[in-house]
């Protein structure tokens, strides 16, 4: 059973690596942030699998803390760094924002 858990953890880690492409690509800030949020969920899954595979129950608490605090970064993002009052200031920014709908 342990090797199944490890294999699944490896698989999930690979999907996380693939998701990094979205962090680089954007185009809007929200896309990058969403990718990070998705990594959080994947990390919770990987940690739960590792807790079982490595027989280390403390890792479940790590997953619990990740799950508990997952919302804070996005709240900070929408309440601070991504506010509508500040209009995009340069042409590429405006293009990226509009293209968010059509890319």
């Amino acid at each position, binding site marked *: 059973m342990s090797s199944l858990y490890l294999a*699944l953890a490896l698989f999930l880690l690979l*999907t996380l690596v693939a998701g990094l492409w979205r962090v680089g690509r954007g185009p809007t800030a929200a896309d990058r942030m969403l990718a990070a949020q998705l990594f959080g969920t994947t990390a919770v*899954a990987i940690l739960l699998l590792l807790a079982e595979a490595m027989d280390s129950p403390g890792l479940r608490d790590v997953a619990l803390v990740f*799950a508990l605090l*997952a919302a804070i970064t996005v709240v900070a993002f*929408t309440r601070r760094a*991504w506010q*509508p009052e500040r209009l995009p200031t340069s042409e590429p920014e405006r293009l990226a924002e*509009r293209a968010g709908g059509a*890319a």
Partner: protein
Amino acid sequence: MILNLASIALLLAGALFFLAGTVGLLRFPDVYTRLHALTKADNLGLGMLIAGLALQAESWVLLGKLLLIWLLVLTASAAASHLVANQALARGIMPWRR
């Protein structure tokens, strides 16, 4: 034995949904559609994975902790997607149309 097989099936199905979530994140056309990858695919994937692990759980405490983790992730991503979609609309990002 049956419990074991069910657990394995759930774990594999969960991993499949995680894959779907990542494909969605990479392939969907705009922020609003990509939110689905975050809120639907991955949460279902995590749910199945947790169900698979819960079938192997030795104690009720562990079962409760696993369930709590899932509910917390559900809450967090629901809140996150609401906030992001709300803000994206407020910034005037148009939803994607074919």
